[in-house]
């Protein structure tokens, strides 16, 4: 069975500081990995994905994520956080089938 862990329910970071939102996964086979962001009462917005190739993936709004196969991690990062980045972030993983498994989400709060 697939699983995705986001170990932090909430991450607080000061505006302008770098941010990291953690994600680890467990799948059978080669993983494909996604990050989505959700603002209140909205659907999920795609940020970036890893399928194959370069371990460092760059996405929307200055976000990037690093795939680490040995640690089965796919942490989301941004060099300088904005207050507007405050939202709920979901990591999702799949392998060889349509079904994505989502993590439970991490609430990011960027403090002015």
């Amino acid at each position, binding site marked *: 069975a697939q699983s995705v862990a986001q170990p932090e329910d909430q991450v607080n970071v000061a505006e302008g500081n770098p941010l990291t939102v953690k994600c680890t996964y467990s799948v059978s086979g080669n993983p*494909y990995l*996604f990050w*989505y962001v959700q603002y209140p*009462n*909205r*659907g*999920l*917005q*795609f940020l970036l*994905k890893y*399928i194959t190739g370069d371990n460092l993936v760059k996405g929307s709004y200055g976000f990037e994520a690093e795939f680490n196969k040995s640690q089965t991690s796919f942490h989301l990062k941004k060099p300088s956080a904005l207050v507007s980045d405050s939202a*709920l972030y*979901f990591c999702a993983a*799949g392998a*060889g*089938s*349509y*079904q*994505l498994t*989502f*993590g*439970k*989400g991490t*609430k990011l709060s960027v403090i002015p």
Partner: protein
Amino acid sequence: DAMVIQNPRYQVTQFGKPVTLSCSQTLNHNVMYWYQQKSSQAPKLLFHYYDKDFNNEADTPDNFQSRRPNTSFCFLDIRSPGLGDAAMYLCATSRDMSTDTQYFGPGTRLTVL
């Protein structure tokens, strides 16, 4: 702009009264998904269509049904809503399955009185 549209954005129904949520897409994607998301939880896949082929998740209650009359539209029918069915319902589409990105609509928040 190509997009995924959900109507209504907010739906209030009474306990046991059937309700239908709708989703449409202008992306011409083959796959359409319905997810249930309860407060601050991960989205839970209910079922999906690949073109006209319907695929139900094993743990999706029989109370939930779906129809896809054409490529653009997909409906979620809840035959007898219970209080536990109050949630955000998200529709998503993807060009194909597996590694293709899923694009989500804004969601419909269902309240059951």
